[in-house]
Structures are given as structure tokens and as C-alpha cells.
């Protein structure tokens, strides 16, 4: 049994939330951890460390409501290159994003010029309303990066969308190429990360390419 206020449980929770944010988040939904209720750790010989978590999540666009979750995060022993295994079960319903998703999709599809933006939020924490879905989509995609790159010695957060460029496609997906700044809490580094994100109202968000930006000091 782990104290929820201590960092080992907190880091595992961040992985679980990142994973779920990627799976269920998008331009109309931003999932965030409201509370970590309970955490247990199991050391499995020759395998790794498994964390069992009870979480409370909320959608930042629907703050009155929380959803309970159970999650398992398995960090593989000694492996720096394998992502932790994550399983999450959500109890309860999240607010529907159907309307918002459709509206965002149509708005972007009807742009004459590809969308380009930078510094979201800006230095003062401002996000122009029309860019909020772009910010939330980035946040969802950053969940993938968090999940794929976390160990028991890291904790990632999205610090800022440094740059985003829409890429027009011949199929029905929207594509945004992002440069995100990820803040890694343990080393305190802010790391630029390049990723391509595909999104569609029914198919949700998919990260098609991601890498740490080369040449970063």
C-alpha cells in the first residue's frame, strides 16, 4: 500500500492519466486527475513493478462532474525503451463531445489556409478561444508521449505548444504537426518534442510520428 501523497504513486497515476487522456481526450475534452484515492505496488520478480490505482478524473470542460477509474501501470524491469503497460477502466460517463467535435472538424476543414500557430498558451497563460481545441488536442497527444516515455523516475507534463502546423490531407483525417514543450518534473528539463497527430471525430486522436527534437542541448 502506498501513500497517495507520495511521489511513486503520483508518477504512476500520471502515466495512467496520460494514457487515458490520449485514448479519450481530443479537441473537445481534456482529462485531468482530480484525486488519487488509493495506490498499491506489487514487485513481480523478473518482470517489473506493477501499480494498482484508484483515481478520480474530470474533464476540464465539464468540471462539475468526476469519473472514477481503476488503473494498472506495469513498469518493465530494467527497460528504458519499452513503454509501461497500462490498463484503465472508467466507471461512469464522460460528457459527450459530438457537437463540439463536429463543429471543430468542419471549421478546420473549411479553412482556406492551413492553420499555423505558436506559443499556446502564451507567456501569460492566455489561450485564444479559437485555439483552445488545438491546445486540448495537443494535451491529448502529449498523453501518448507521457505513456510511451515514462519510467518510475520521470513525470511528464505538457508545458506549452511551441508550434503547430496543420497539414492538409487527401483522406478524411485532420493532421497537425506539433512541436510540444514537455516538462519533465524529476530532471526539471523542458524538452521539445515533435509529433504528428491525426484526428477524426469518430476515430479520435492518433499519434503517427513522435520524437524528441534532435539537437536540443
Amino acid at each position: 500500500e502506498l501513500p497517495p501523497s507520495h511521489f511513486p504513486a503520483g508518477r504512476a497515476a500520471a502515466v495512467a492519466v496520460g494514457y487515458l487522456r490520449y485514448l479519450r481526450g481530443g479537441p473537445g475534452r481534456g482529462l485531468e486527475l482530480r484525486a488519487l484515492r488509493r495506490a498499491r505496488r506489487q514487485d513481480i520478480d523478473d518482470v517489473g513493478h506493477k501499480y494498482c490505482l484508484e483515481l478520480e478524473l474530470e474533464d476540464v470542460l465539464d468540471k462539475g462532474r468526476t469519473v472514477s477509474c481503476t488503473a494498472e501501470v506495469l513498469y518493465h524491469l530494467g527497460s528504458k525503451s519499452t513503454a509501461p503497460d497500462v490498463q484503465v477502466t472508467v466507471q461512469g460517463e464522460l460528457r459527450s463531445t459530438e457537437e463540439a467535435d463536429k463543429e471543430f472538424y468542419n471549421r478546420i476543414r473549411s479553412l482556406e489556409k492551413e492553420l499555423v500557430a505558436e506559443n499556446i498558451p502564451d507567456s501569460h497563460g492566455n489561450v485564444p478561444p479559437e485555439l483552445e481545441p488545438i491546445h486540448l488536442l495537443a494535451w491529448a497527444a502529449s498523453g501518448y508521449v507521457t505513456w510511451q516515455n515514462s519510467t518510475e523516475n520521470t513525470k511528464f507534463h505538457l508545458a506549452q505548444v511551441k508550434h503547430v502546423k496543420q497539414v492538409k490531407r487527401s483522406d478524411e483525417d485532420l493532421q497537425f504537426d506539433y512541436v510540444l514543450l514537455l516538462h519533465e518534473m524529476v530532471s526539471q528539463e523542458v524538452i521539445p518534442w515533435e509529433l504528428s497527430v491525426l484526428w477524426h471525430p469518430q476515430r479520435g486522436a492518433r499519434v503517427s510520428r513522435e520524437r524528441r527534437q534532435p539537437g536540443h542541448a
Partner: protein
Amino acid sequence: ANMKLILIFSALIGASLCLETFVGHQVLRIKTKNEKEVKQLQLLESLEHLELDFWINPSASALPVDVRIPAVSVQSVKAFLESQGIEYSILIEDLQDVLDKEKQDMAESAQRQRSSSSFDFGAYHTLDDINNELDLLASEYSFVEKIQIGESYEKRPLYVLKFSTGGSNRPAIWLDAGIHSREWVTQASALWIANKIASDYGTDASITSLLDKMDLFLLPVANPDGFVYTHTWNRMWRKTRSKIPGSICVGVDPNRNWDAGFGGPGASNKPCSDSYHGPSANSEVEVKSVVDFIKNHGNFKAFLTLHSYSQLLMYPYGYKCTRPDDYAELESLGRAAASSIQSLYGTTFQVGTICKTIYQASGGSIDWSYDNGIKYSFAFELRDTGRYGFLLPANQIIPAAKETWLGLKKIMEHVRD
């Protein structure tokens, strides 16, 4: 002698003018030596056409006689006094000059009054604007003083606001913000808190009794070089801006540079790292200045420092994972403070030692202060928990400051008592 007097001055009757300005008017201070001289001045006083304006009337007392003399009469009055051997000195050379200066002072003061209360605490400001506001607070409140405790690497002054209602080296509380420059909500909150304390002294019972017994020293921008850098070049800059010998990288993590487990786990020895501890403990002038100030003062009872983000309220240790001797009291006080914070907007802060709550980190400020006898050492990590992180929207500054203040106040009240 009386006749002579009347003769001399009657010539001046026609010269009296009714002026609206006081250009060339002089104020003389006359020291009478005996009753005869007093009587002569009283005669002078009776000559109304001279329009002498006695600020202190001639009398038998030991008081000097102060009189304002219109420009046209100045030379004649002086000639008379000299001829009678009556001693005088010039208090005011030209009254209009003095009035002009006073008018200017008042206008500036009124301007300052408007500015001080019109400072937007709900917005992020530049270093210059912050320093300006510190000046305004110091000039507006008699018990607030701006002092300089040192200079940054790039020679910017390190300004501390001293809140003191008297006494001599009273037991004191230390509060700093912005040691990590990208944590903008902390410098902004410190300004709000400074204004809150200053304006509530005398009306809020708790603040009043606190400052009646203790002094408070507030350093709102502990890392001014880094702060300017976050405005001009890189919003995500954390460290100082010191040149590191033998490296192309710049800056030391000032919260790994204190002499507490220096160089141990949780700090990097690589200059390019954001948690680089520096070549040696206190190598950073920003850290050394605070250390020297606190040591020289010798009577600090609490050391409180603001960081962001994560919503945590922590006490020592960071450099080792064992509990401090005062664990029970600090844990209990921390919980009480977190509870106060939560009471306002429901914001939850986790409480615990640095090592258990966030990570093992050596060379931290509150470990140093605690190991140097300052029992009530706490580090706050303010809003939020990661949605905006360092880029907390400005509309959250005042809520963050308000809730944080409740936590700080809880700790300060405990220290006071």
C-alpha cells in the same frame, strides 16, 4: 528711534502691492536680545501698509520672531534691523520656490497614490514594474522599507521589503518567491501578499498582532536575472544566468546550490542540466546574499519559499529521506495550513517532506534554513497541477495568492504564538 522708523517705512506705503504670488518674498527669523528690541518689532508689526506677515509674533518670550516680508520691503526691513543691531537670519530665501516645490511634491505624491493602488495584481509584470511597485509600497507605508541585500550575477539589485513596526532586531519571518524564474505565479503572488500585509496592518487583527511582535522580510524576485531572461528570451528558463567555467551552458539551479547535502542525490553535476547544483555551495551570489543576510540578522524564526507548480506544501528534508526532529509539529502545522488553503476555493495541497512528496533533492533552501536553526521552514508549490503548469493564466494569480496567503498566515500565526 520710533520717529525714524515711521519716516523710513512711510515711504514704502505706496509701494505695497496686492500680489497673488510670493516671488521674492523672504521669511526672516529674528532673535531679540532684550525688551527694547521686542518693542521695536511690535511697532514694525503695527505698520499695516508693510503687509508684514508674522508667523511667530514678537513677544517677551524666548521664542524667535518669524516674519514673511513682501519682496518690495525686504531690503528696507533688513536695513532697519541692521541699523538697530537686531540679529536675524534668512529662513526662506524665496517663498515662491518653496511653494512651487511643494506643489510638485503633492502632485507626484497624488500620482504615486493613484499608481500604488492601481497596480494590477492580477497581471504578470516586468522586473522594472515590480521594482517600481516595491518603491510605491515603501513610500506609502511607514513600516515598509525597501532594502537591498545584494546583487545578482548580472548586477541587478536584490530587493527585500522589510515590514517592521518597531523594536530592535525583532524575531523575523523570511518569505521569498521566484528563485526559479519561470514560476511566474510566485513573483506575482508575492506582490499581492506584500500589498495585502501592508494595507491590512491596523485593521486585520492577525496581521496587526503579527507585525507588532515580529518583522517580516519579503524577497519577491529572488532570481532577477532569470526573471528578465524569461521575459526576453526563454519563458521556460529556471536557473540563474551565471557563466560556468569550461562550459557553453549557462546558469545554476539556485535551489540545489544551498549548503545542505550539497552535491548529493537529486542534483546534477552537469552544467547544461536544469538541476545543475553549481561548482560549489553558495557559488551563486543570489543564494549567498540571502545566506549572509539571514546569518547576519541572527533572529529568523521562519523561512518560507514559494515555487510552482504542483500544489504541495513541504518541509525538510529534501537531501535525505529521514524525518526532521520536528516532524510531528511540522506535519501538523503543514496540514493546518493546507486546510486553510483549501477553505477558500477547494484547492488541495499535498503535505509532506520534500523527499517523500516530490523527490530527493539536495542543496535546497529550506533544508539549509532548518539545519541552521530556523525550525519553521516550508516550501510551497503553488497552482496548478499541470494543465497550465508554469503558464498559469493571469486570472488565476489573485486566487492563487489569496489561498496561498491563508496557508502562510496559518504558519506565521503559529510562529508568532
